[in-house]
């Protein structure tokens, strides 16, 4: 186990200042237009479409069929695999279809379509969880359907039960929110700081963690102040002011910035004694322990040049994108690109018939001037991508070898360590499609491995 003196020191001080800064990254614009938009609740839509895959891991099998009546909080999809997370109905109504439908990731996934009745009758299974030890607690978290709400969607119960040989001494709350536009985490910090602290206390009790750090980028002074005030009496919780630099909120970069520990390639935060959780995930735990309502809604930042009324909206999971944009006053002009997630890592959507997922934190719609990117030109070897890569990779060489399908070289350049943060593509003066070729390269390596190739 690696013990770090900086941690022991900062555990004593209430407010610790940033001691480490990851190398590279990009100075992306903030564009937090919605930071002062208080969360508004969107009502129940006519229908919801709930995909059976809203996490990293095994997809769920639907546990309802066409014609079934469902209630709010009822499990409609589950899996017996460990790395998976049950999916609950966000509405009461009648199942009208269970079929593969277009998924925000661009593929088809088994999806439960529910016609809502507007009553929102709560299912009888919804009651505060009873637990008395760690394993019962972890089981309750699994039942809640919680996955990492920062965007990745890693099942939380897996995160909370690291192998017994890995001693966790540090909980890092990810409140960096380094992507442009998105303010969904920020609003949680401003509107519900006590929920965040309650959630932290539950985890301190259940996991026996001594040090908790809340990492917030310094472009959110109000959130830092609120969290600082509310954690003042608690010696084990420190608020860490992070430099606003993309991708400060990337797990490995955040852990380094806050604790000085580096997660080795191919390893997990638990390998360096750390658990990282998003602010919204942590306050969900507090809410779930209080009232037992599983994860059925999400705060989403709706913004972008084509959106009439940029807002932070609390949305029932499964609500279709078209309904969300309509709720925000519709479009100012024809949207040319619609993103689920931020502009740096978000996924462009083919259709507005896809729906809000557990891990959705933003929906952005852009007009043609912002949607169309400048054309690619030859690499001039300026090395800006090398400077920007927080993972220390050489994106220009991976790009070159991906285009040549040179698998041996791709391995030599550590292609699989790429976190696809987009910093390289962002800074490239030649506008090379670097991240795109990283993905291509990874796919090539996967295919080569599947074929039993070298």
């Amino acid at each position, binding site marked *: 186990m*690696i013990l*770090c003196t900086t941690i022991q020191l900062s555990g004593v001080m209430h407010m610790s200042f940033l001691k480490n800064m990851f*190398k590279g990254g*990009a100075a992306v*614009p903030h564009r937090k237009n919605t930071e002062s938009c208080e969360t508004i609740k969107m009502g129940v839509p006519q229908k919801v479409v709930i995909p059976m895959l809203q996490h990293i891991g095994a997809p769920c099998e639907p546990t309802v069929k066409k014609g079934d009546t469902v209630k709010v909080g009822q499990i409609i999809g589950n899996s017996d695999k460990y790395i998976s997370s049950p999916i609950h109905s966000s509405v009461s109504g009648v199942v009208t279809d269970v079929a593969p439908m277009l998924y925000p990731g661009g593929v088809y996934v088994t999806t439960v379509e529910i016609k809502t009745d507007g009553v929102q009758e709560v299912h009888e299974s919804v009651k505060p969880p009873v637990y008395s030890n760690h394993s019962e607690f972890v089981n309750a978290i699994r039942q809640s359907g919680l996955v990492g709400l920062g965007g990745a969607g890693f099942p939380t119960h897996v995160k909370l039960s690291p192998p017994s040989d890995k001693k966790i001494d540090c909980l890092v709350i990810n409140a960096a929110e380094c992507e*442009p536009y998105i303010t969904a985490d920020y609003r949680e910090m401003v509107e519900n700081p006590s929920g965040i602290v309650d959630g932290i206390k539950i985890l301190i009790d259940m996991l026996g963690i001594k040090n908790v750090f809340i990492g917030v980028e310094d472009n959110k002074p109000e959130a830092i102040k609120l969290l600082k005030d509310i954690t003042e009496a608690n010696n084990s919780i420190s608020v860490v002011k992070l430099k606003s630099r993309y991708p400060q909120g990337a797990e*490995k970069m955040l852990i*380094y910035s806050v604790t*000085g*520990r*580096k*997660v*080795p*390639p191919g*390893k997990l935060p638990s390998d*360096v004694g750390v658990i990282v959780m998003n602010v919204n995930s942590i306050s969900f735990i507090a809410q779930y322990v209080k009232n037992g309502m599983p994860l059925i809604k999400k705060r989403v930042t709706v913004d972008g040049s084509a959106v009439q009324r940029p807002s932070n909206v609390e949305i029932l999971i499964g609500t279709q994108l*078209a309904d969300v944009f309509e709720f925000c006053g519709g479009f100012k002009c*024809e949207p*040319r*690109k*619609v*993103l689920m997630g931020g*502009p*740096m890592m*978000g*996924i*462009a*959507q083919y*259709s*507005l*018939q896809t729906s809000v997922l557990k891990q959705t934190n933003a929906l952005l719609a852009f007009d043609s001037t912002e*949607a169309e*990117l400048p054309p690619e*030109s*030859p690499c*001039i*070897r*300026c*090395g*800006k991508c*090398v400077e920007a890569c*927080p*993972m*220390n990779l*050489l994106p*220009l060489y991976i790009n070159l070898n991906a285009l040549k399908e040179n698998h041996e070289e791709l391995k030599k*350049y*550590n292609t699989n*360590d790429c976190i*696809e943060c*987009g910093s390289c*593509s*962002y*800074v*490239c*003066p*030649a506008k090379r*499609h670097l*991240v*795109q070729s990283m993905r291509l390269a990874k796919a090539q390596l996967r295919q080569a491995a599947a074929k039993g190739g070298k």
Partner: protein
Amino acid sequence: MGNNLLVSSSPHLRSGDSTRRIMMDVVIALLPAAGAGVYFFGVRSALVIAVTILSCVVSEYLARKVMKREQTILDISAVVTGLLLALNLPPAIPFWIAAVGGFIAIVIVKQMFGGLGQNFMNPALAARVILLVSWAQQMTNWVSPGPDAVSSATPLALIKKGQEAVVGVALPSYLDLFIGKVGGSIGETSVLALLIGAAYLVYRKVITLEIPLAFICATAVFTWVFGGDSLFSGNFMYHILSGGLVLGAFFMATDYSTSPVTKKGKIIMGIGCGLLTAIIRLYANYPEGVSFAIILMNIAVPLIDRYTVPKSFGGEKAVA
């Protein structure tokens, strides 16, 4: 609705940086040196600059046309090559040789190897060296600064002869060297003007300091240790301020296409350039070695890049 949506890979946001903007920055950064050249060596220098730039741009246009490739003259890189070439030529160079230089740089060194970013040698320097070995007399016909433009020797030629004890002319002062009031190529003599331009490039983050500093320090250390009558007595300050060292270190060795991409690689490149420059200056037939040194190191760049692939984040050690 929904069928007109553009789908592309993230990121969906790009910085305002562009290849043309970088090339413009290099042109801007070279203006003080070009201005100093015209001031010290007369209007003819301006004409040489015009001829090489024109030759480079026309060569690029024609080469792309003949190869049936997309036109690239608007990226300004040919202008940069032309300007750099002119600054590396003697003020009295016949115009036609200057024009041939532009053709060699663009067609033979740059476009024949695939164009921007693909050339393995610095086009301006490779052209200069080809001109030097082809028209040695015209390429070493130095004039002293001032309206009279009398034949002169460069400071390095003087110090080289000085070593062999045939001193007849006084060496110029450090101040003259710094300001540029000495014989030499159009753009290499004024260290002051070059440093102003270099500061601009660093400020604009077009270049980083690894290569120039390693280059200059390596030259200084080597000439200090071995450049004098006994060990550790060389006049390193004189070596730094004269010849093409400052121009080469900040503007030529930092050429993107022909320099390594990692910090470590850049330092290796700089040290290599510095040592080779000093060795050529002290022990070879030529008084000046910057061009040869950079070109030799250019050839080594793919090798340097290969052996300086960094470990991924967290791969070095677990705790900072």
